[in-house]
């Protein structure tokens, strides 16, 4: 009755190094596609056409060409690059702060019953507080320097991360959690190998949203006493009715959105490469 499996070679030959998995899931995996550029380019072309033909009056929306010129101007004066750099620093710090807090709270409240009962309600309360209304209180509490700006960004970032992480954690397949429990995973391993990967798709959506919101928050945050930054550039342009500069700001934001998206797609592609590409997925 003793039989050896053909597929089972001698024990010694089993590789024991923990090399990263390189499964033969085939070359069907999608690469970043040029097709994603079709609609952005189409939008710009239509916009320019509408402007040149006069369908879109210059004072309703500056033409792409004029926006480009304005962009060049604010680049030359250093306003745009400096503004970007200043805002970027604020966004990065605020984002990290908010993301870490949101992540920790989300995992915690998603995993433990009491965590959920105690953390979730105040977060649900706080998340609807409007930034604009918080500005005066933040000035009162944190002054007018960098702190209130960074905190406003952090606050904006926190909630989408929290909500999506929380939902992701709650949605982790309980069968896998059970498996981890009976397989001797310690708490750290459960979180690292079951909860985090399971919640990842949802968390990445949160990341997408929160990166966007970080940049939105900076516009409000930079109405608090600043004389530099992308948000400031926009409010300032708005103050002095420079529609073309506003549109430059909007275009920069759109590019930031695309950049953010590309970044998250990259992470997504790496993190979710275990998902086989099945035929049904593209119904």
């Amino acid at each position, binding site marked *: 009755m003793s039989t050896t499996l053909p597929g089972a070679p001698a024990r010694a030959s089993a590789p024991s190094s923990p090399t990263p998995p390189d499964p033969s899931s085939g070359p069907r995996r999608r690469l970043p596609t040029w097709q994603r550029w079709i609609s952005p380019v189409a939008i710009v072309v239509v916009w320019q056409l509408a402007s040149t033909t006069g369908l879109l009056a210059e004072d309703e929306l500056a033409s792409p060409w004029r926006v480009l010129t304005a962009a060049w101007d604010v680049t030359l004066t250093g306003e745009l690059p400096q503004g970007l750099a200043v805002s970027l620093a604020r966004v990065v710090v605020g984002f990290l702060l908010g993301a870490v807090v949101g992540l920790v709270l989300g995992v915690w409240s998603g995993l433990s019953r009491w965590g959920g009962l105690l953390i979730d309600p105040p977060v649900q309360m706080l998340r609807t507080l409007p930034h604009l209304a918080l500005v*005066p209180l933040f000035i009162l509490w944190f002054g007018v320097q960098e702190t209130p700006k960074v905190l406003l960004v952090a606050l904006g970032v926190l909630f989408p991360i929290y909500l999506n992480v929380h939902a992701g954690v709650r949605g982790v397949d309980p069968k896998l959690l059970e498996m981890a429990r009976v397989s001797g995973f310690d708490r750290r391993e459960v979180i690292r190998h079951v909860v985090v990967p399971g919640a990842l798709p949802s968390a990445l959506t949160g990341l997408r949203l929160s990166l966007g919101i970080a940049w939105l928050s900076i516009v409000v945050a930079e109405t608090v006493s600043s004389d530099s930054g992308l948000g*400031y550039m926009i409010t300032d342009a708005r103050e002095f009715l*420079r529609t073309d500069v506003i549109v430059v700001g909007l275009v920069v934001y759109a590019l930031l959105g695309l950049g953010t998206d590309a970044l998250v797609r990259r992470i997504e592609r790496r993190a979710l490469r275990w998902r086989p590409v099945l035929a049904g997925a593209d119904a």
Partner: protein
Amino acid sequence: SSVPRSRPPVQPPADPAGVVLHVGDQKGGTQSLLRAANLLGGLPYRIEWTTFSAGPPLIEAARSGAIDIGQTGNTPVIFAAAAKARVQLVAASQGNVVSDAILVPHDSPIHTVADLRGKKVAFGKGTSAHGQLLYTLRAAGLTMDDIDPSYLQPSDAYAAFKQGQVDAWATWDPYTAQAQLESGARVIATGDGTANGYSFEVASNEALADPRKQAAVADYLRRVDAAMRYSDTHRDQRAVVWSRETKLALPVTQLAAQRGPDLPVPMDDRLVASEQDLADAFSDAGVIPGRVRFADIVDRRFEGRAAPL
């Protein structure tokens, strides 16, 4: 909060050396004024500038001690008084009131203030234009109830004005100049004879409680005084700096500058009465609850010390 509630006493003379004075500013405001007059050199203390988009947030910052001093218009200070903010008005200046205008599109059927009855008028709630509109209407025998107010900040108001979404727009320079030059807006009333055109230096109680900061404030006020006088005599130069900082077209700032800059004035009884009158107008219009005693936040003790440089 460490900000004293009541007006701090006059401090013994002190050396401001080494103090950092946090000054709130608006774009194209005091800092550019001082720089143009070359009055920022040789300071015994250090100034840290913070830029605000408007008066209210500047006062928000001053009352929490986040800034020590900053300049704002005649209306936000009334709300500061109403809110019992922990600030003092330590100096005043007065500008031309011609630029505080009510504008209509050039082809508008509206020609007089009386024509505004039932019309949609844009202005920023709580701005100096709001006060000026109150006055202008009153002078024409109208009240706020006779018009259809559309509360819009200058930027939004200009957009709405150009699109014909509103019939009239109450505003100030450089917006007045911009609208006149760019879209041929017609002025149907100015603040002449109605508006008071004051601006104030608003100091935080916290700064005034510190002898060395008090000294720095006094010195700063002297410099601002001098800078205003300088800019009055160098209007072209002022227009250039202004245009550079706000990116408004040079003709716009030139027109605005030619109408004359702010000049220091004493905070005398006439000033207090005029502001009190404005405050009462706001109270009457129901914009602020109750009555305000404007004199409560006027601190005249720096006027003597703010002798010309």
